């Protein structure tokens, strides 16, 4: 995973609530067996509409998505995170994310930032009026900054540490091999097994 410390970029304000993962990346894209190449599937249905914000020339190269509440609801597909990243997004701001989406994003180094709705509104307004406006997402300082706006955000210390250092979860867990083996040794025999041994 790539480390995330701080990022500054232009934004795409997406004024929709309850954007589910089927909208972020439709199911037929899930047939791919790699982690890349999902950028064209991002918001595929909406992008057919020329007036959709992502299609506006001035939004090209934007890297921060400022989304409505309840972003990423629905399926557990990690492809939604990959699609956002493949497209070029580094951070998503919303007042509320679906749990699984949030977990997936933090595991892949896509920073999902939770801010109060009124701050999200302000960021949307700012970037709607001025497509050149930049937003800084500073993980070190746990702060989002834009013209006239400074807002602190929370992220648990462990997730933050992993993101800042770009650490891979599996290697961290495998350092606790002894604990896993000890747990396995005391598991009751009535627990189910998929293979008969």
């Amino acid at each position, binding site marked *: 995973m790539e480390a995330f410390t701080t990022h500054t970029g232009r934004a795409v304000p997406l004024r929709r609530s309850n954007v589910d993962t089927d909208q972020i990346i439709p199911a037929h894209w899930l047939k791919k067996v790699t982690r890349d190449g999902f950028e064209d599937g991002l918001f595929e249905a909406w992008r057919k509409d020329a007036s959709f914000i992502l299609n506006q020339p001035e939004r090209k190269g934007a890297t921060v998505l400022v989304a409505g509440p309840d972003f990423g609801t629905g399926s557990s597909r*990690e492809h939604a995170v990959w699609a956002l990243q493949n497209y070029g997004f580094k951070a998503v701001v919303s007042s509320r994310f679906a749990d699984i989406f949030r977990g997936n994003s933090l595991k892949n180094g896509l920073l999902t930032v939770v801010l109060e709705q009124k701050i999200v509104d302000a960021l949307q307004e700012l970037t709607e009026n001025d497509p050149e406006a930049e937003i800084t997402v500073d993980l070190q300082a746990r702060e989002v900054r834009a013209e006239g706006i400074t807002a602190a955000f929370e992220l648990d210390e462990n997730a933050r540490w992993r993101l800042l250092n770009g650490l891979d979860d599996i290697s961290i867990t495998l350092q606790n091999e002894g604990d896993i083996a000890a*747990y396995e040794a005391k598991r009751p025999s*009535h627990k*189910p097994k*998929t293979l008969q041994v």
Partner: protein
Amino acid sequence: MGRTLAEKVWDDHVVRRADGEPDLLFIDLHLLHEVTSPQAFDGLRQAGRPVRRLDLTIATEDHNTPTLDIDKPIADPVSRVQLETLRKNAAEFGVRLHSLGDVEQGVVHVVGPQLGLTQPGTTVVCGDSHTSTHGAFGALAFGIGTSQVEHVLATQTLPLARPKTMAITVDGELPDGVSAKDLILAIIAKIGTGGGQGYILEYRGPAIEKLSMEARMTICNMSIEAGARAGMIAPDETAFAYLKGRAHAPEGEDWDAAVEYWKTLKSDDDAEFDAEVVIDAASLSPFVTWGTNPGQGAPLSANVPDPASYEDASERHAAEKALEYMGLTAGQPLRDIKVDTVFVGSCTNGRIEDLRAAAEIVEGRKVADGVRMLVVPGSARVGLQAVSEGLDVVFKEAGAEWRHAGCSMCLGMNPDQLAPGERSASTSNRNFEGRQGKGGRTHLVSPQVAAASAVLGHLASPADLSDAPVPAGV
């Protein structure tokens, strides 16, 4: 202080706990399917890691599988590659796989319980959000992303922060003709698609205790639609009886030890939940969705709501958008909505009791002209059971299509899809825009409502069938 069911199961699986870190939880059962696993196996391969516990891992094919001509090569090359990738990965790593054509193949959340692998007090994960289904047994079961799939394959554990707990107490008794699906749709409409976020839900109370295991699975299945990662129901004699004798249920002394443990799995009387919701079952009636998220539902007897009636601006906006997409007008009676497709199936309502309920209604009747009804068993075994009871014949005689097991039109990754503008009454769990096919419009319903709607050609409940002939538009 006492502990909740979820807390007990959680505590029993903590491998490592340290200040400032998420708990490391042991995973008892890992279910795999073709969609969310390829990138995880790739990760293992790149790191040179084996699957740590093949004996706790099992795979099936469901999302992409066709429901017709299953003995022929799969027509869609991309679906074929995905299924072949799973087969190759399973062979290479030694994972047990039930492929298309195998009697145990089917939707992953139907297969686990039917094999007796889903047991009370276990932790169950799968790269699929409807893993919450397995909570019906008092298992702590939740969907995970592909990175976590790889993590479980490599370590049989997951680092997780413990969610809060919410009790959903359902008092009273469900009236006749009101099913578990109606109940869960009503719960989601009440608490909202974000209402369960950050919580493990525990469904309890007299109305829940009376439900069969299959009905309990329908309830827990849709916990994710209320935003919760997991839903649970305390295991009881109904659960033990369901498990007894299943292929992977414990036997002999192990059975006795297991039951003794399972009996401890309920929330203590003095346990404290972080939130509680109370529902009166007696006040419920058949429930359907009118919008594009599962929280946008109402009793079948109601009208399409007026977006202007929502105080919250984002809800109002969402309702406007939903009505536009669904092609509905505020104030229109839900019963007036004509459907051209009916889908009975999925991990929500594709089990034998669901098929029986639908068959009972269409038996001796005909699917309305211009309506296509698709019946897709949740697993090959459910299909065989239905055939042995003659249900396939009942469906076919009524003019419905009887298909092979899989996810099918629940998400339209295989050829079973809605065409743009087509409208379905569907027993599945998501009515998102385009979920069942681009431009398709979905109304979530129970198997009973699905069957009655197929016969009448508009959203209807079985009770509407008796006042025949039903004049158009009532």
